[in-house]
């Protein structure tokens, strides 16, 4: 069976990802590797929104809410448990449960798209102001002081069961990259299951999905929770990359940035948001090193250009161009073949073919 173009691309992406996983620590300096870990964490966050918004059709403006909650949950649990392995699962669970509770009221209450975006944004902004006000010794969960706007120092990951054996930044990079690859292929797998295909169908037409007998609320809530859990996991990686969690993770800037990654990379694809987040991360990083123009101004201009010129995002647009180009290539190949064939048959038939159309 011939593999589809899409699958070939995905395999190429997978191979690239694995190569990058092994080669990056050999090639890059430690500083770059730590930075990359943060970028990867943000890519997983972008992927989670790509799933929820691009496939589930749920415009969640507060995906960073679950991301931040995951990071806080990881840090607090790790401080209390000592071992970080359980804390990872706590973070995923907290992200998913928070999405579940919030999603239950919005989805079962049949809140419309715009209000859903507003509610999720408000959710993350509430967490932002709430956590900023937690400075002082009275705000603590177990042994973990919440620390107000300074946040909490996150314990680095350790080898499961061996608390004294914490991972080096290079090792954390390996873990993060592995998580990204697994999450990406996990999401692809999910979108191909019956569940995933129904989720896409619901995005296309809710009423039709209902009339086929699918309880759309259950499907939407489930995909929202999966997205929340994945964002929570991204939070764990972020806490490890930065080494600290702060209320700023929940702020408006980051909430908007997540949406921008998905728009730039392309909604309805999974690799798009990942590439969008990497691209924007390094663009911001580069802009941060210069002092000529305000970098928020540049980011704003980029967003406007994308929304106006490439509204579908980079990856879908590239795919379209590729298809057009390859169609043109195969058409011209076919035409050339046809022309050759006609030329040959004309030569064989001598003059007779040129006389044929003439009427007497």
């Amino acid at each position: 069976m011939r593999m589809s173009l899409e699958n070939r691309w995905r395999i190429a992406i997978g191979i690239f990802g694995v190569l990058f996983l092994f080669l990056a620590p050999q090639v890059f300096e430690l500083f770059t590797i730590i930075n990359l870990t943060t970028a990867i964490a943000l890519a997983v966050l972008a992927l989670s929104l790509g799933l929820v918004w691009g496939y589930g059709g749920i415009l969640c403006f507060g995906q960073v809410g679950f991301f931040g909650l995951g990071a806080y949950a990881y840090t607090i649990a790790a401080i209390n448990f000592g071992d970080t392995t359980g804390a990872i699962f706590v973070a995923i669970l907290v992200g998913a449960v928070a999405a579940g509770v919030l999603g239950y009221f919005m989805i079962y209450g049949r809140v419309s798209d715009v209000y859903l975006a507003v509610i999720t944004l408000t959710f993350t902004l509430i967490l932002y102001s709430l956590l900023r006000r937690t400075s002082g010794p009275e705000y603590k969960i177990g042994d973990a002081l919440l620390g107000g706007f300074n946040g909490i120092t996150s314990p680095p990951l350790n080898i499961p069961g061996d608390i004294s054996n914490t991972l080096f930044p290079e090792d954390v990079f390996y873990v993060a990259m592995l998580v990204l690859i697994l999450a990406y292929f996990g999401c692809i797998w999910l979108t191909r299951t019956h569940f995933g295909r129904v989720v896409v169908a619901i995005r296309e037409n809710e009423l039709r999905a209902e009339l086929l007998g699918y309880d759309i609320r259950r499907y939407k809530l489930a995909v929202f929770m999966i997205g929340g859990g994945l964002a929570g996991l991204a939070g764990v990686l972020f806490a490890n990359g930065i080494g600290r969690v702060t209320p700023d993770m929940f702020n408006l800037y980051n909430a908007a940035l997540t949406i921008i990654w998905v728009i730039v990379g392309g909604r309805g694809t999974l690799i798009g948001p990942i590439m969008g987040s990497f691209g924007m991360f390094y663009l911001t990083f580069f802009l941060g090193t210069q002092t000529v123009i305000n970098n928020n101004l540049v980011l704003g201009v980029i967003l406007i250009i994308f929304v106006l010129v490439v509204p579908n995002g980079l990856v879908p647009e590239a795919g379209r161009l590729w298809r057009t180009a390859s169609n043109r290539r195969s058409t011209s190949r076919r035409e050339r073949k046809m022309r050759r064939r006609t030329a040959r048959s004309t030569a064989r038939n001598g003059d007779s073919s040129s006389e044929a159309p003439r009427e007497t």
Partner: protein
Amino acid sequence: MKREVVVETRNLSMHFGGVVAVDRVNFTLRENDLHCLIGPNGAGKSTFFKCLTGQLTPTEGDVVIRDFHAAGRHPHQIAGLGVGIKTQTPNLFNGLSVDENVWLSARRWHDARRARALTTETLERLKLTDLRHSQMDQLSHGQRQWVELGMVVAAEPWLVLLDEPTAGMTHDEVVRTAELIREINQRATLIVVEHDMQFIRMIAEKVTVFHQGAILIEDTMDVVTHDQRVREVYLGHRQQ
């Protein structure tokens, strides 16, 4: 021996503000019936249909499908009884392929292998095999209607509710739709809302005429077409 009643409405009423769209309708449908609902525009047949399918919650009265009290339930609960529904304007998954549309319907009721087989079978039966990879929004109106019928067929429902299945179809397509509906009727009970009289003549056993939200007459097509009141309603004036 009388066949089992499968759908019954009891004093079903639907009000929109002061407008009474459906007025205390008592309607029964027996197993294996092929029942057409007709009536001029604004007679309340589509509203009645939406009450049956759960798209509207009736103001008063009840809808009973077998033993299930359906009034005020969600469409997915009603469809979940094994009811196949086609709405008036084509309701499809526009961004997806023809194949995917039909598969999503079949897969709701059957395991993966059976769903695949049913999808292929349905596409062949409806002569849509060539279009299977086309995206829905590239198709003509008639083809879209046809795919939606395919979605209904692929689920193998025991009760089928169709709202204007032939709207926007060419004559040939209408004839084929009539054939398909008779085929469906061999296994399932049907309610068809229509106002194309020619089409109804091709399929109908029993016809219910709606007028001003209420049932005007319920009988065979022959009796209905010769009924004086039906002519008045449709032609809008008294014959001399």
